[in-house]
């Protein structure tokens, strides 16, 4: 395992200390239990927007704490959802009297731990609403399964809902908006390489030099299928077509196109992927209103990418463009 770390068990804690030191103007970090809140929280009268999940996806979620996005983020161990006490304490820390929205990625662990935290918070009569994101089309959905994973759309939801909360929208409105963003977004990802959980010490899976995994999540899990490597233009179609068909996106739809790097893939390749994606979208008459290209929801050092398309209405576009000031995403401020 080749990583810039000290003790594998201390990675999250030590990185969090560096993060706190780097952004004192934006965030406050609590170490036991671990959570990150806006430096100015709680913001009185404003809905608190809280998310969290395993670490190893940076900048998500901690990097999105700040004005116009998240009020709080709860980092778990690497690829392990955080514990209820983290979300419970963070919820109390950011409740400004207007309630707290929990944005939860759909993984059994995340859902269960957030549920428990919400129960604890409600006992303190803090209003909590939870919205679960599940945008990964690589997962066959069904009533009897855990359902689809929450991936790229989570980032977009945190930005758009965070802007709405900043505008003073109430909890129910923020929750509805979050559900709408989740409903209008779809994602799919692929990996060129695996990644290594520090505490595990070896790659989660092995891939041949000419192999790739299609339909991966963000935890180094293997994907839906393993195929031999292809040119970017073919890979992009493998990701984009299922996304387009699933919603489905129709000619004339206006979208935000999000090309996400998994952590180990350089920006040069992500822009090349975006170049291919544009062509596919153009063929389908889908109009790109906004784009986001870079590593925003990662899987440690995994090489690969994911594509997320979000069908945007005027309100979503306005909220996307609204000022955001976080370590990981910043404009208009």
């Amino acid at each position, binding site marked *: 395992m080749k990583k810039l770390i000290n003790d594998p068990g201390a990675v999250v804690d030590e990185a969090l200390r560096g993060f706190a030191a780097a952004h004192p103007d934006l965030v406050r970090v609590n170490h036991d*239990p671990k959570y990150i809140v806006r430096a100015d929280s709680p913001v009185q009268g404003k809905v608190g927007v809280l998310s969290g999940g*395993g670490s190893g996806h940076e900048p998500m979620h901690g990097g999105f704490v700040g004005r116009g996005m998240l009020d709080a983020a709860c980092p*778990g*161990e*690497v*690829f*392990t*959802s*955080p*514990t*209820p*006490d983290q979300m419970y304490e963070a919820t109390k820390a950011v409740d400004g009297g207007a309630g707290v929205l929990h944005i939860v990625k759909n*993984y*059994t*662990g995340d859902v*269960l*731990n957030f*549920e*428990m935290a919400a129960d604890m918070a409600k006992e303190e009569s803090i209003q909590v609403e939870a919205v679960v994101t599940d945008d*990964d089309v*690589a*997962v*066959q959905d*069904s009533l*009897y*399964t*855990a359902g689809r*994973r929450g991936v790229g759309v989570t980032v977009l939801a945190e930005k758009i809902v965070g802007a709405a909360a900043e505008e003073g929208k109430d909890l129910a409105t923020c929750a509805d908006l979050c559900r709408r963003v989740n409903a209008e977004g779809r994602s799919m990802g692929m990996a060129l390489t695996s990644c290594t*959980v520090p*505490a*595990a010490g070896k790659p*989660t*899976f092995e891939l041949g030099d000419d192999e790739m995994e299609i339909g991966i*999540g963000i*935890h*180094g*899990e*293997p994907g*839906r*299928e393993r195929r031999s490597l292809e040119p970017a233009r073919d890979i992009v179609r493998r990701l984009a077509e299922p996304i387009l068909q699933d919603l489905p996106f129709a000619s004339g739809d206006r979208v935000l196109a999000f090309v996400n790097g998994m952590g180990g893939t350089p920006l040069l390749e992500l822009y090349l992927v975006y170049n291919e994606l544009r062509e596919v979208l153009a063929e389908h008459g889908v109009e790109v209103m906004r784009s986001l290209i870079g590593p925003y929801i990662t899987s440690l050092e995994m090489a690969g990418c994911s594509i997320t398309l979000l069908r945007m209405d005027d309100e979503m576009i306005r909220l996307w463009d609204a000022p955001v000031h976080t370590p990981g995403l910043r404009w208009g401020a």
Partner: protein
Amino acid sequence: MTGAEITAGGVADWVRGFAAAVAEAKDELTALDSAIGDADHGINMHRGMQAVVQKLDADQPGDVPSLMKAVGMTLISKVGGAGGPLYGTLFLKFGQAAPPDAMTPDDFATCLDAAVAGVQARGKAEPGDKTMIDALLPAAAALRAALGGGSGLGAALAAAADAAEEGARDTIPLVARKGRASYLGERSAGHQDPGATSSALLVRCAARTWTD
């Protein structure tokens, strides 16, 4: 110790025994989770059970309800993932069903039923979904059957452990419908479920703790 009377001390030995067994099986559990999950089950369970042992070393409650509550709450606040809430619930419910003082083998079976029911209520998993449940349900059934058939606690727990291990092995061909492994669809078949494996270990540790 012999099985007639089940004391809080015995239950604590069971929990500590499980912690030791998890420490030993850590890499194996993580390897299983690498195949169909996210390579952290052994790491998570180990981190949690180490915290439990510390907690008990600091102060070990003298009755089963408080003991198991301490164990469950520690797991819930230290493990995370799916395993944390599920194992936490398992121990919490076990404790809630336990009498304040020493219990009988039948009490134990009642507690185990309550524990498994708690895990099912939390995780909504059905038998055959390729989860902990596939080890726990057969174990609880086997325990009741053996006790009903007149075996002593030790023999009954051994039967329960055998059933749990068989249930865990039987998850191999299953296509997961719950948890991370379900994302793999068909690809999840052919691998033993890590949670079912750690659950079988938990029952096996009980059998090692109480022998006739």
